[in-house]
């Protein structure tokens, strides 16, 4: 096999360990996928096939779960994960304008990753910190009380 992303992933010991931990336990499918997503930040097809085999779950079921839940990504992610909260409270406080700005600055829509793999953008509903709304979260760090201009400044800090 050539040195594709797939082979690199196949060699990843952490993923092997996660799969081994859940081997033979079909009920652990969501747990296994979640841990791999957490570790690797996306779910390559080869890995999903190995999960199906190890947990003794049909591949179609694995795909059903992997495509249903929004957290799972079937494509590689950018270096920085940007979440714009579009929950109701943030919406009332101007989240739509913030999202527009973030889309313009990053050049991508929610669910996408840019060509340089700098940003992946998601619109998350209610991140539980409504008093900071509207807010964006970059790589887990909250940036509260955003305006379009402030959001633009925040994104500049992530290369």
């Amino acid at each position, binding site marked *: 096999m050539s040195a594709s992303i797939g082979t690199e992933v196949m060699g990843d010991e952490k993923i092997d360990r996660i799969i081994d931990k859940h081997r033979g336990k079909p009920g652990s499918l969501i*747990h296994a996928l979640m841990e791999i997503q957490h570790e690797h930040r996306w779910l390559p097809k080869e890995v999903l096939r190995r999960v199906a085999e190890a947990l003794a779950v049909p591949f179609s079921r694995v795909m059903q779960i992997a495509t249903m839940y929004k957290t799972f990504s079937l494509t590689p992610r950018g270096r920085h994960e940007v979440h714009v909260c579009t929950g109701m409270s943030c919406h*009332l406080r101007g989240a739509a304008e913030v999202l527009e700005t973030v889309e313009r600055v990053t050049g991508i829509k929610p669910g996408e990753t840019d060509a340089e793999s700098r940003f992946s953008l998601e619109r998350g509903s209610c991140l539980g910190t409504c008093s900071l709304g509207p807010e964006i979260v970059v790589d887990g760090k909250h940036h509260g009380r955003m305006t379009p201009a402030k959001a633009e400044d925040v994104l500049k800090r992530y290369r």
Partner: protein
Amino acid sequence: MMPRLNSAAQLEELRAGILAGRDPAKPCIAVCAGAGCHGLESGAVVSAFEAEVGKLGLGDKLEVRATGCHGFCEKGPNVVVSPGEICYFEVKPEDVPDIVARTLKGEVLERLVYAHPVTGERAVHMGEVPFYKHQTRLLIGDNPKIDPTRIGDYIALGGYAALSKALFQMSPEQVLDEVKRANLRGRGGGGFPAGLKWETAKNAPGEDKYVIVNAHEGEPGAFMDRALFTGNPHKVIEGLIIGAYAIGAQRGFIYTRHDSPQLVEHIETALAQAEEHGLLGENILGTGFDFRVEVHFDVGIFVSGESSALMRSIEGNPPEPRPKYIRTSVAGIWDKPSNLNNVETWANVPQIISRGAEWYAGIGTERSKGTKLISLSGNVVNSGVVEVPMGTPLRTILYDIGGGVPGGKAPKAVHFGGPMGGSIPEHLIDTPLDFDGMAELGAPIGAGGMLVMDEATDMVDVARYLLEFLTNESCGKCVPCREGMRQMLKILTNITKGKGKTSDIGKLEDLSDVTGLACLCALGKTASDPLRGTLRYFKNEYEAKIATGNEAAGSEAR
């Protein structure tokens, strides 16, 4: 390692030991590390306190504690100094040396205490701060007194005494009866009596039974369950164990969000500590009662908070709801009797057992008992987590606690119940907080997210926004939900863009009738409730938009 507790007496000995080792006069600085304050860099404030205490060698003179949410998120990072519950707001790391110096002298640092934004009136102690003054904080009030990663803090406040009482002094039937007489109603949205649900699961045939904490909290604008569970995990776990004892369950599940790392960490730490102490696991407190709890995660879909969908998810299956004629209390996870309640409902159980059903039923209205946690947000001066007795007028929450609408604007409505809820117009603001009364107005309490909308809010856009949210969250199983919502959204979007037609309102009403009747779960059934609600109270806004659209279309035609 802590030796296992094997009797009620040993638990009381442990509690006495913890209390004896504490000097109530020794100042304790509680820094809020809840979600809101965390987002405002409260972590740096905690580090600054620890560094200052280390630098001055104050370890035995001053305690610093990182706690769960205090409630007043708007003014975070929050710091509360005991004794005296002196509240400091918007604390920055550079304020820390001043706070420490004043605290050691028994003085108050005036520049960081609350000042009313209009009158400038100051409030030093928690009981004087308007945001807190009008609340009854039975559930969330312990948060500033607890380091959520230390079971000892919970035990010091009387924790697990209710479990001990239930196990040693009451039969499972008596526990059930107490909860029924307290008329505890489910806090997750439905308001269904918890005792009746417990009873159904208890009486259902079969040996294997399960109890579940629904900590999914997917309702946008609701963040109080996370605040309570992250800040005081043992309170919820104690309630769950008591429920398991009453129902006869051997296994418990906590279903929560994967995207709140601190919540997950605190739950897992609490479970481990409870087990270590013999309060969970095999032979709890030496009574022979066995009960285990495992944690499961939602990975990002709103409908998995629906009870039957949630149970499918715990099994490792796709979270698709089932028809309601199959009751999960009888056939839930793996078709075993499964009793599900949300975080706040479980958290109410220990106090009902400790203080009794009569005490509990003395709080609230005739049919809605106890206090209710509210996530107050939107166009409001003081956003945060609020706890008030049932029956409190919405006006009190909006004005006395919430401080009204920012910028001197008038409110247009308050919205309850999240995306399937409804909005109460300003002229009904004296409505009391109550399961039934508010549902009649088309704005059920839901989980307790209260969103304030100011006079500039476009109500048609609110309906469109909520429907868009639900359209994206539909699992797609029921056609009327999947397709009907999409069509409603299309029509609503057209209206908001000024392309509405006069016939649209009738069409929306038809579509909402069908989805309301023909969907399996609450998501589809009540998806159009905000639409109906806004049509009920704000029809003029729809008509105005459609009229504008007609005019524009007319001028184009000309």
